[in-house]
Structure formats: structure tokens, C-alpha cells
């Protein structure tokens, strides 16, 4: 198999240009999808017979919660690639993922709390999913704190990479240990294989929103990785020539 494209991606000038080309192709569709889903979710989808209009926050809550986990896995995989193949760009991707993922986690927690107030009558409940989401936030913050405490970028990369890999092994354990408690949180309404428990008229905006969030994440990640490349390569010849 020809791996040239992959190795080429490890070269900072190439990656910098490629990410710059990719960004608008991710950002504008993401914006369009999110606006469409927001309009359809907030105005077109029918009111829920049990939860009234409060359920509509789901259109932000569910995509951000699923992104928070996906971004963490991606961060750990990128960090693993960085450690194993000593690829600096993979570490830059992992570093970019951390901040975005932490914000998705915050968004999921905040929207969950706003939803919980009218539904449960409390901003916060010690429910398994809320709690494991909170611990996920702590894992993100720990990762960022460890990165920030090393002055040397290469050591920061490797140390935080090990933490990300240890963390990803731990995430399922945390999830299942926290589920030991009785759950207040409603079960998942989405299923890829079986029929979804959600009403068909409510579903399309949610799916489009999830895809929109994914593309949006990709666009912001392009920006973050480009910024990382600029800061790491600030003394490199190609950058001085380009400036």
C-alpha cells in the first residue's frame, strides 16, 4: 500500500496548506446544517407530549455530549499515533482536540442542567451520565494542565500523550462504575441498528445537528492545528519565506 499521502501529512508546510484548503469546506456546510437543524428543531418539530418545549434543548445537548466523548477518543488516538510514530503533527492534533472537547463537555453539562431544572426540579442531580460527563471534563482539564506545566513542547507532547492514552483505557471503567447507581437519566433514544424511540418528525434535525457539530469540530480543529503549526515552526525557513 502506498503511504506517501500519510507521510506527506506529517510535513508541517504541506499540512498547513492542506488544512487551510479543507477548512472552508468544513465550516460553511457545518454552519448551514446547524442553522437548518436549529430552525427545524426549535420551530418545526412538534412539541413533546410529556416534556413540552423543554425537550428542544436536546438538539444542542445530545450532539455536544456525543462529541465530547468522540473528541476524547480522537485525542487519545492522535496522542497514541504521536507517541508510537513520533509524529509531531499528531501531537498538535491531540492538543487541538483537548480544548474543543473540553468546551463540548461544558456545553453538554450546561444544557443538561438547564434541561434538568424544569424536568427534575433541580439544576444538578448525581446521575450516572451527568457524573461521568463531569469526570470527563476533569480528565480534559488534567490533560491541559499537564501540557501547560511543561515548558518544552516535545516533552509536553509525550507526557500528556501518555495521560491521554491512560485516560481512554479508564473512560469505559469510569462510565460503568458510575452506572452502578440507579439512573435518573432517561435511556438513549437513538439507535443505529434498531428503530429509534424518538418520533420520526423530531429525528432529522437531531441527526443533521450531529453532523453539523462534527463538521464544525473539524473546521475549528483545522484552525487550532494550523495555529499549533505556526507556533511550533515559528523559526522554520518555509514559514519565514511564506511571510
Amino acid at each position, binding site marked *: 500500500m502506498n503511504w506517501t499521502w500519510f507521510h506527506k501529512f506529517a510535513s508541517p508546510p504541506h499540512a498547513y496548506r492542506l488544512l487551510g484548503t479543507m477548512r472552508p469546506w468544513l465550516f460553511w456546510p457545518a454552519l448551514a446544517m446547524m442553522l437548518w437543524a436549529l430552525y427545524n428543531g426549535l420551530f418545526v418539530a412538534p412539541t413533546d407530549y410529556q416534556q413540552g418545549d423543554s425537550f428542544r434543548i436536546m438538539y444542542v445537548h445530545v450532539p455536544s455530549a456525543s462529541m465530547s466523548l468522540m473528541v476524547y477518543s480522537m485525542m487519545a488516538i492522535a496522542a497514541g499515533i504521536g*507517541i508510537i510514530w513520533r509524529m509531531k503533527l499528531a501531537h498538535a492534533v491531540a492538543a487541538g482536540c483537548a480544548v474543543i472537547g473540553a468546551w463540548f463537555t461544558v456545553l453538554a453539562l450546561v444544557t443538561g442542567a438547564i434541561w434538568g431544572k424544569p424536568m427534575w426540579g433541580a439544576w444538578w442531580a448525581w446521575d450516572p451520565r451527568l457524573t461521568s460527563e463531569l*469526570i470527563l471534563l*476533569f*480528565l480534559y*482539564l*488534567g490533560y491541559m*494542565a*499537564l501540557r501547560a*506545566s*511543561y515548558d*518544552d513542547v516535545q*516533552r509536553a507532547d*509525550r*507526557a500528556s500523550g*501518555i*495521560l491521554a*492514552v*491512560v*485516560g481512554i*483505557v*479508564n473512560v469505559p*471503567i*469510569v462510565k*460503568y*462504575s*458510575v452506572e*452502578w447507581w440507579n439512573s435518573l437519566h432517561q435511556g438513549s433514544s437513538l439507535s443505529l441498528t434498531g428503530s429509534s424511540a424518538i418520533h420520526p418528525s423530531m429525528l432529522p434535525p437531531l441527526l443533521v445537528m450531529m453532523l453539523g457539530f462534527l463538521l464544525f469540530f473539524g473546521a475549528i480543529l483545522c484552525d487550532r492545528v494550523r495555529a499549533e503549526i505556526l507556533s511550533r515552526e515559528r523559526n522554520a525557513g518555509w514559514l519565514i519565506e511564506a511571510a
Partner: protein
Amino acid sequence: MSRVTDAPGLWSLAGRVLGRELTLAGRHWDQVAQPLLFYVIVVTLFPLAISPDLARLREIAPGVVWVAAMLSCLLALESLFRPDVEDGTMEQWVLSEQPLAWMLLMKTVAHWLVSGLPLVILSPLLGTGLGVPVSAWPVLMASLALGTAALSMLGAIGAALTVGVRRGNVLLALLVLPLEVPVLIFGARAVSLGMTGEAVAGPLNLLAAILVLAISLGPMAMAAAIRIGVES
């Protein structure tokens, strides 16, 4: 095809590392005692802060004992790798042709023997003060024995990662505590089940599983982290 070498085998290496660590701990026994004293004092604070009523204390006893044990383990971690990195011993370990992960595992085992095991032995005494019945002592000790060992292994990864950082102790807490949440949940759950006389095999088995996982994979992460820590 044997190489002529005076390098020790794996088990004799383990014995040497354990012997060295225990001797060092014996010479600095005051440092070893400090986390234990901390454990006793933290547990004492709860009746003072909440109420001297044994019925109320009994409800929170599993949580109090476990949180105090977790914090005490965290405090003890600070002295796990740092002195050896600072005086250059760790550099020699990294350069030697012995398996670093194995030596670090043995070092962590020795660390548990002087910081975790005394905590396990002390726990019935403190538990009684919080109203834990004698019938729950075996569960309390078993959960703490498995749990503190797992805490030592997980904590050692964090200690190895922060050894190259100047002021790493707050950072260490930030890294290690979220990773240790499952141990806390299963440990405290085992004790509270044991106090009401229910079956405790479930959480204890899960604690044992976490310990086995941490022992199998942890030393490799520790070794990789120590290599980063000493290379500056």
C-alpha cells in the same frame, strides 16, 4: 548461548529493589508515618464537622474512610519517584540494561507496603470510631487492601508524569483523582454493603479486576513517563 554477565535475574532484581526501598523507608520512617497521621486526622475531622452521633456517622463511614484513604495515598505519592529523580538514581535505572517497567513496579509495590498496608491495618480502629460494626471489618480491610494497591499503581503513573514538573503536587491531584474514581466507588460500595450484611463479592471482584489491569498495563506507562521525566 549465555552472556557472561553479573546482571541479576528478574526475581533477584525484584528482591534487590524491594530491599533497597524498604531499607530507605526504614531510615526515613518519619516521612512514611506522615501520610498515616494525615489519614487519622482527616477521619477525625468528620465527627467534629458533622455530628458525634454514631447513627449518623455510620451512614457516611464508608465514604469518609475511603476519601481519607484516597487523599492519604495521594499525599504519599509525592515521595515515590521525586527523591530518586533528584539525586540521579532514576537516571541510572533508566540507563541500566534492566527492565525499567519491572523495577518501577517493584518500587511501587514497596511503596504500597509502607503506605497502603499500614492504612489497611489502621482502618478497623478508625472504622470503629465511625460506628462500623466488627462484622464489617473483613470487608473494610479487604476493600482497602485491594483498593489502596490499585490507587498506588494508578497514582504511580501520575507521579511519574509529574516528576519532571517543578511544583507537581497540585497537578498530581488533578491528574490522578479523576482516574481513581472507579476505585472509590467500588471500595465505598463494598464497605456499605458489608455494613448492612449484603453480598460484597461484586464490588470486591471489580476492585481486584481494576488492580490486575493496573498492574499489567501501569508499569509500561510509568516507564515511558519516567523516561520523559529524567531526560531534561
